[in-house]
């Protein structure tokens, strides 16, 4: 007999939006001038989050141009677990045409867990150029790091056990109405 998994909502659509607004303000504060800023989402769910952050940054400071400063960075080919996980199809990498050299790149992902995705992203980034600084923004930090990494901007710290899963449901990826977006813990 299998028990159906138990899910608990830990962030609602409004919580997600508030967290992104706060992160956008933190990014502006940490960075003198937004002109040299690149916001880079890690597929899949980091990409729509990066786009939303870009829109919020533009609302805070009109000097920020979301079209020229928001991109995506696929890390599939840089992962260290390719030998023992399912073969993945890489997602598109689209970096702003002006490049990342000498700029501040903010990597955006939905969940920070082992830190291995971020390590892969740092390797991938170095093949495209040499940013002046790289920062990390995540919607959820669930702990259990396996590498010496931390996020600069966190939407919400959610203590979890390793047996649990964290699900981020976004309108763009999961095809649900914006009001029903949520972050859940699946036990």
């Amino acid at each position, binding site marked *: 007999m299998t028990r159906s998994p138990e899910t608990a909502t830990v962030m609602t659509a409004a919580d997600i939006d508030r967290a992104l607004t706060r992160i956008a303000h933190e990014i502006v504060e940490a960075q003198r001038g937004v002109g040299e800023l690149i916001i880079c989402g890690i597929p899949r769910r980091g990409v729509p989050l990066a786009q939303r952050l870009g829109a919020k940054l533009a609302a805070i400071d009109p000097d920020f141009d979301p079209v020229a400063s928001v991109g995506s960075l696929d890390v599939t*080919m840089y992962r260290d677990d390719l030998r023992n996980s*399912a*073969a993945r199809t*890489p997602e598109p990498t689209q970096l702003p045409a002006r490049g990342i050299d000498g700029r501040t790149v903010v990597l955006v992902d939905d969940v920070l867990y082992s830190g291995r995705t971020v390590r892969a992203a740092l390797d991938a980034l170095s093949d495209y*150029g040499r940013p002046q600084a790289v920062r990390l923004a995540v919607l959820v930090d669930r702990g259990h790091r396996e590498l010496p990494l931390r996020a600069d901007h966190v939407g919400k710290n959610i203590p979890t056990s390793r047996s649990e899963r964290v699900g981020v449901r976004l309108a763009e990826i999961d095809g649900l109405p914006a009001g029903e977006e949520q972050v859940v813990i699946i036990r």
Partner: protein
Amino acid sequence: MKHLLDTQALAHRDALAILDTAEEMTAVSSREVKKLPTLRGRTVVNLFFEDSTRTRISFEAAAKRLSADVMNFSAKGSSVSKGESLKDTVQTLDAMGADAIVIRHSASGAAAQLAASDWTDAAVVNAGDGTHEHPTQALLDALTLRRGWSRAHGENPRGRNLAGMRVLIVGDIVHSRVARSNVWLLRTLGAEVHLAAPATLLPYGAETWPVTIHYSLDEALREAPDAVMMLRVQAERMGGAFFPTAAEYTRRWGLTDERLALVEQLRLGATDSPALILHPGPMNRGVEISAAAADSPQSRILDQVAHGVAVRMAVLHLLLSQRQPDGSLDE
């Protein structure tokens, strides 16, 4: 997918996974660092019992761009010329730690035999076996067709197949493993396939294939294909007389300057973009394709070469990163 042996048994899902991965791989060759660390520490052996510089260097470039170590084994001047069997050759390579074996052989079914044997645990990629199949060539052709079609229609190529496309394959079908692989793959991807060839160059049983056969190139061009794929006249495989003279072949079956004028009128679907001209290379200019056709703006022949590296990167990546049935989570 453990091996890539043919396109006849290639599932629609796997074909799309290869094309979508290849789509991202095409971007690597335009980057400053044209290398990915994906297959670091893995070994790919190119085991070529038949001459093929183009296919071999394409596989070599693909493996090297993924940071794999590459060993090239060509039968000429090797222990094979001293009488070593395929089994002994492969077991030797296995003992050296090959993770993937890319095999080109003059015997149809050589790759399948290798994959079915217990001589090696390596992933086997068929790089052309006799007159049977050449799956990576068909995949690169499909990538070229899909990109051309998607660009003309202003769509994102990812995830889409070739439904709605009509592809005409012209020439030496009987000796062409490229044609066979293309027929199966293009059909799997939903394209409509037409063949135009002299009766002597059509294989026995071709009428049972899921294709439309024309015995006149001019008649086939009137069906308004979206792409015309010219095959090489394989003189080295023709012991007998399959057609009277090269000039006669060109007059009836070649993409001459006069026929190029017809092809220039063809369009990709309902768009204003011109139809595509493909050729798997190497070309016999002036025989199956005129110089003007080969160099025309409609020609995608150099794109095909670039796409070949991308497709082979995708295949090596998908075969060498393991698939587990439980499908671990993405977090």
